[in-house]
């Protein structure tokens, strides 16, 4: 296999004062690969995701992204506009709270179409038809294209966020607790949808969650974090079915079997 990783992370550390949010995280993410990050609240998962997606600057370490034009480039060595361009085109971020990822006062169609315009689409009819197609793919009644997301349920808002992020065909997707705060039946539907979309689009993804069921279904590879450090890292089903580290064993054995 001669291809390049899409993301190369080395020694990533983020401190808040003297508090360690995450320390010495290193990994390669390959095209089409889904990496799960699990651990309890305060383990440093969200800070890690914010550093990786260039929303928070690391205290130490490097994050290199395989740009279309120049190959692997240090994300924090890019100019601010170039970095923002990546966020609007090559990358997608699905926030835990849809309010952080959607304009609540703009129609669902406007939210989904915006990123298409960011990658250069101008023809209104084409944009609208592609938005309709994506609303359908995330199982939202296309008759609601002109309704505002604040009139939607939480699960629908989350699906609008997913459509908004995938419509521009990103190469890398960041997902922060994508099913957090949703009813269990809605979670299953969203997860299945995500699983199919990730597989069919071939997008690489990093999904942060405390729900081991989410990573079992979505992630090829799993990192277990505790106290800001990665304590175990490997094939998802191996880490879940035969965890090696004491903390991973505790985490897995704490799940109620249903």
């Amino acid at each position, binding site marked *: 296999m001669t291809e390049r990783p899409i993301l190369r992370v080395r020694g990533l550390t983020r401190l808040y004062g003297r508090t360690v949010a995450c320390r010495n995280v290193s990994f390669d993410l390959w095209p089409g690969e889904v990496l799960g990050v699990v651990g309890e609240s305060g383990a440093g998962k969200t800070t890690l995701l914010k550093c990786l997606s260039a929303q928070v600057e690391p205290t130490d370490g490097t994050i290199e992204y395989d740009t279309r034009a120049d190959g692997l480039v240090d994300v924090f060595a890019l100019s601010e506009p170039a970095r923002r361009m990546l966020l609007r085109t090559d990358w997608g971020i699905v926030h835990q709270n849809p309010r952080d990822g959607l304009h609540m006062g703009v129609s669902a169609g406007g939210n989904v179409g915006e990123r298409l315009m960011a990658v250069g689409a101008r023809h209104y009819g084409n944009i609208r038809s592609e938005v309709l197609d994506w609303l359908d793919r995330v199982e939202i009644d296309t008759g609601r294209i002109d309704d505002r997301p604040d009139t939607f349920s939480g699960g629908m808002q989350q699906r609008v966020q997913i459509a908004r992020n995938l419509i521009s065909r990103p190469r890398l997707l960041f997902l922060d607790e994508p099913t957090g705060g949703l009813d269990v039946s809605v979670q299953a539907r969203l997860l299945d949808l995500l699983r199919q979309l990730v597989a069919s689009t071939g997008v690489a993804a990093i999904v942060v969650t405390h729900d081991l069921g989410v990573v079992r*279904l979505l992630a090829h590879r799993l990192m277990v974090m505790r106290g800001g450090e990665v304590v175990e890292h490997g094939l998802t089903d191996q880490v879940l079915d035969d965890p090696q580290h004491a903390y991973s064993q505790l985490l897995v054995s704490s799940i109620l079997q249903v």
Partner: protein
Amino acid sequence: MRNPVLEIHDLAKTFRLHVQGGIEIPVFDGIDLALHPGECLALVGASGAGKSTLMRSIYANYHANGGRILVQHRGTVVDMVGAEPRTILDIRRRTMGYVSQFLRVVPRVATEEIVAEPLRMTGVEAAAATDRARALLARLAIPERLWSLAPATFSGGEQQRVNIARGFIAGYPILLLDEPTASLDAANRRIVIELILEAKARGTAVIGIFHDREVRDAIADRLFDLKPGELAA
């Protein structure tokens, strides 16, 4: 004789239960075996001897503590012990299949798509993969009206047959079968025996756990005996 498709050297597995005071449960140590195309090896030994643990270790679902698992994969030999996750996933996609005792049900996915998925993952076009899935489901006597439904509500025997169809569809060179006929009636058991014999004739190497004597006698070329406690002592 052709080269083995699977060669295991000195494989060891011990569970360390940190949550329970760090006790250690040695399961096996020093396992050596080789498997050639078209050959079927049946694992035997009392309950708790480590048969399923050995199968799961070979599939890298369990972490081996030592030894080597050498697999013929894409024209080279790959050691699965310590391999990168994406290498292991590629081996599972192309080279090694595993039929577990129970189907892991994915919510909302139609049975025919669950069965077609491994074939699609090898690059076969979706429609062709679904056709092949339907043919296998028909052969395994799953009623046609169930094909478009998710298998969550199927009977144990139906779920097991869906699992078998999923395991056989991609024609892996190596197939691991954990009690594939445990909850099947006599007629379905015979169908599964036929499927295994056909796969062997095509060159598939099989390692299996078959408690059913009739099944084992029909398909196994050799037995591999795991004795509990012996290695641990």
